[in-house]
């Protein structure tokens, strides 16, 4: 086993904590003799873990999908006017501490999963939107030119395409975009991956959680970058040292299946949502 591979370690630690911690009751009782119940024992830990994963998966997915959609919309010529509005709204979502959102949402929605989902979704929307916008606007003009010149559709190359022609042309174009095509999908996937990488990166920069988590996230971001192809938006990584280290890992793991990489980084991202 590769000692630097995070997935096996994460799995092992999760299993140990989930099933081992309830057994540690005597230790906690010794450390905190004044507490009648030093350990939460109403539900088994694995059930709490599942709840937790479900919560972050749902809110994270909504943030990612909504954020990317918004970012793509406001970087199109027809959506450019809304760019600052969307950025402001997303920033407001970020300014609200999730606890405050909970405080507002609970009276309206009652206790349960919904206020938590709303709070986490709002909190996650800014990084996703902001970084997707940043990523899309960082693509070098030469690459856009080449993509356009090669005959990629705007949706596919995710580029501005100002069509000065007749209105019917524009409608044709949209219809073409809406038609599912196996040629287009890979490129679009690439772009979603870029965005996912950016979320991870952004969260890293937010410094959420411990240093350990930070490096895990940066690593996830980088892995997405090299496996999922985010070099297109070469974003700065906080520490060049870390970057260097991670670049090595990337090189070693390039052949690794993309799917695993995505799952892993999304999980990391979602864990931070939860921390927040």
């Amino acid at each position, binding site marked *: 086993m590769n000692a630097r591979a995070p997935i096996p370690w994460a799995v092992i630690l999760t299993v140990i904590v989930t099933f081992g911690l309830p057994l540690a009751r005597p230790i906690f009782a010794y450390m905190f003799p004044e507490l009648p119940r030093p350990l939460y024992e109403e539900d088994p830990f694995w059930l709490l873990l599942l709840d937790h994963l479900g919560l972050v998966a749902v809110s994270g997915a909504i943030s990612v999908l909504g954020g990317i959609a918004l970012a793509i919309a406001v970087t199109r010529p027809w959506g450019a006017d809304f760019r600052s509005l969307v950025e402001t709204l997303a920033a407001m979502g970020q300014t609200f501490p999730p606890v405050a959102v909970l405080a507002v949402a609970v009276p309206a929605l009652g206790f349960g999963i919904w206020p938590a989902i709303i709070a986490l979704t709002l909190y996650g929307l800014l990084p996703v939107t902001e970084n997707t916008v940043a990523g899309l606007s960082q693509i*070098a003009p030469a690459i856009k030119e080449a993509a356009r*010149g*090669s*005959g990629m559709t705007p949706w596919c190359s995710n580029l501005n395409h100002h069509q*000065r*022609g007749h209105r019917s042309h524009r409608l044709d174009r949209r219809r073409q975009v809406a038609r599912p095509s*196996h040629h287009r999908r890979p490129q679009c996937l690439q772009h979603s991956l870029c965005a996912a990488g950016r979320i991870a990166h952004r969260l890293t920069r937010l410094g959420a959680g411990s240093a350990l988590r930070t490096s895990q996230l940066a690593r996830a971001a980088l892995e997405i970058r090299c496996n999922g192809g985010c*070099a297109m938006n070469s974003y700065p990584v906080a520490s060049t040292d870390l970057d260097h280290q991670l670049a090595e890992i990337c090189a070693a793991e390039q052949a690794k299946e993309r799917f695993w990489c995505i799952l892993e980084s999304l999980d990391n991202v979602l864990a931070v949502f939860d921390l927040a």
Partner: protein
Amino acid sequence: MITFENVTRIFGTWKAVDNVSLKVEPGELLVLIGPSGSGKSTLLRMVNRLIEPTFGTIKLGNDNIASLQPEVLRRRIGYAIQSVGLFPHWTVERNIATVPALLGWSKEAIAKRVEELLVLLQLDPARYRKAFPHELSGGQAQRVGVARALAGNPEVLLMDEPFGALDPITRAALQAETLRIQRQLGKTILFVTHDMDEALRLGTRIVVLDQGKPVRIGTPAEIVADPGHALVTELLGGESLGLRRLSIETVASRLRKGEKAKGTAIAATAPLGEALARMLSESVETLPVRDEAGKALGSVHLSDFPRTLKPKKAVKA
């Protein structure tokens, strides 16, 4: 192959391209040359509809390009640019496969085509197929750029100062490649440059543009013999125009038929510059001339070299 009919493009109040009518013949390498802002790139980019003409029509073969979907049109046209614009997160193989993939070719057909093109552009497939753009030198990247432009087997190739950012040696090598590929594949190429040497070397015809209008159209030999316009003379290097003629005109144009001379014969098809170089290095003023087969034709005299008048008038006289 490409026909411009009264094409005008206006940006704001500025006429970038001013009522241009032009025909690019099949299999021709037509060079557009002119100073910055002369409209050469605008003219080129209207062919694949990266820019739309304000007035006029452009035809590709018999199709009016305005009636085609821009993306569909672009997949029929190869496009190579100075900044190359390789997709940095894709391997060389995948970059080259861009257009075939968009055209929906099968995996096997694409792999075969990539191999073919890497060989054509003299990049070792085993070494470069899986390389990423950042691992390539400028010259190699542009080779990949040209391969990508050729990949979809396009009817025409548009090249916008493709070698402008390369060092002189790499540029010369790629120019030679372009000529070889052009001869081998017989592609119609529209080529933009601001470098007259490149234009003279590559072009079957050259169109000199100034302020959106063609001021001179002709073969390299015609243009060197008779610039016909102050701008063309300037592009040809003013005073050093005479030296350029040495590389365009051949020994045959100064042949004294039947006269004999000593020394090693020079081919009638060799440029005058080569004859001059021989004369200087051998300290002689005459050289014998032979044809391709080695048969003696006559001689060439140094004193005839200044006779660089306009060929038509010379013929009449």
